[in-house]
């Protein structure tokens, strides 16, 4: 079996009985519930149908809670390694060091994809329940979700690099939260492409739900890939060169 496949299987094994799914489900549910409630109460002002609903449910989810949820997931993926002598065991396992990081990133990618799917499903259910027609779903929806997920993978690589370095569970989450607000500032200053957390705002179109021009869509994808490569390279380099503290 390929080493990466074995390490990914080990990551899933470690997630068993963690009840992480409760955390993964709680935030999209609360975001959609409150967004739909606000949309329903203010239908006189919010008259752009699905687009208005997207701005309501997506604002807090995409702007604040999804990045923090990613930070929590990444901190959890590294939590077991930081207890006991588990880093020593991981580093002496007969697998390439890089595959330890890639396996965590893949697992984080799968978890965030699950969250995005749940969010999309709840958005459609919520919209239908507030009286919107399912046949008029925005054609940009798939693009929003996909680009949002790409940005989520980028943020995951950043958070994993932090969580593998910092033993505390809460500190990387706090740093991630600070970065979220910095990302909002960068977006407002029209420099969103230069900061990973702003890429989520741009990709999911939560502040401006109109569709992005093709060139900008490509730029968002390329910048995401560049950031992911840079954070991953830094994390793997550190794993290879610095001693672990068990």
């Amino acid at each position: 079996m390929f080493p990466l496949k074995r390490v990914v299987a080990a990551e899933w094994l470690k997630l068993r009985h963690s009840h992480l799914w409760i955390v993964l489900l709680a935030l999209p549910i609360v975001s959609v519930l409150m967004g739909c409630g606000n949309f329903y109460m203010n239908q006189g002002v919010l008259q752009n149908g699905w687009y208005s609903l997207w701005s309501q449910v997506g604002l807090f989810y995409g702007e604040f809670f999804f990045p923090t949820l990613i930070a929590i997931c990444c901190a959890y993926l590294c939590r077991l390694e930081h207890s006991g002598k588990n880093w020593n065991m991981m580093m002496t396992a007969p697998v390439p060091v890089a595959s330890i990081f890639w396996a965590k990133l893949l697992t984080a990618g799968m978890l965030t994809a699950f969250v995005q799917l749940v969010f999309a499903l709840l958005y459609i259910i919520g919209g239908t329940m507030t009286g919107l027609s399912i046949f008029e779903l925005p054609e940009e929806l798939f693009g929003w979700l996909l680009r949002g997920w790409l940005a989520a993978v980028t943020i995951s690589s950043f958070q994993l690099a932090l969580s593998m370095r910092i033993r505390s569970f809460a500190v990387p989450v706090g740093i991630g939260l600070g970065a979220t607000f910095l990302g909002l500032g960068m977006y407002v200053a029209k420099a969103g492409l230069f900061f990973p957390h702003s890429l989520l705002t741009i990709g999911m179109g939560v502040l401006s739900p109109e569709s992005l021009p093709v060139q900008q869509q490509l730029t968002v994808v390329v910048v995401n890939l560049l950031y992911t490569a840079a954070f991953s390279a830094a994390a793997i380099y550190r794993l290879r060169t610095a001693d672990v503290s068990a």
Partner: protein
Amino acid sequence: MIRSIWLECYKLRRRYVGMTVLLMIGVEMGWAFMASSMSIARNPDQASWEPLIAMTASLNGLFAPILAAICVSRICDMEHKGNTWKLLLSMSVKRERLYAAKYGCVALILLLACLVQVLVMIGFGKVNGFEESVPIMLLGRLLAGTMAAHLAVIALQQWLSMALHNQAFALCLGMLGGFIGMAADLFPSAIRPLFIWSYYSGLSPVAQSYAGNQLEFIARDLGTELPMIGLLLFIGLLIYGAGRWHVSRQEV
């Protein structure tokens, strides 16, 4: 008791808790000052303390629950991670006192954070040349309201952080608390008091209301605020008591 609190503070050396708290307060106040500066640039007559206090109180609704969750998780997780509960319990100190010491330590850290927040606000007002003198009473009420909400939130977070090893739940609750704290003003007034996170903005000494197209800031009556603080402290005490009772009887 003071020695136990001091011991908890001592254990936090080189754990960058202070830096984390200052970073978050810095981001929050940066946001508040940026919004206030923009507002003052548009309406120079709004260069006064009331809008700044109202803005800070409503941002506290978002930031303070998460800050409290991070601090409490940090102070409880070090015992889980280092597997030091048995070591700690082998001291001739009751479990209840250890629980109280951790609570006191976090409350002290957050009190200092609130004081820093107030001092930074005074600095902002002075730099921007607010004409009125520093409203000690309003700032004191903001401090008291924020701390009352903190005391209840810390009690809930500590219960969760100590009862469950997995800190993801505690931080998720903190995040949900931030969400509720931020959106609390949109809730119907009948259900708003049920959420302890809603009191960060609910106990703001300055209320905002629209008079036509103009946003107005009015100082709230102290008489309506005091019973709310009393109720919140009572709820906090109940949560603290339940958490202490539950955690003290858990098997290590």
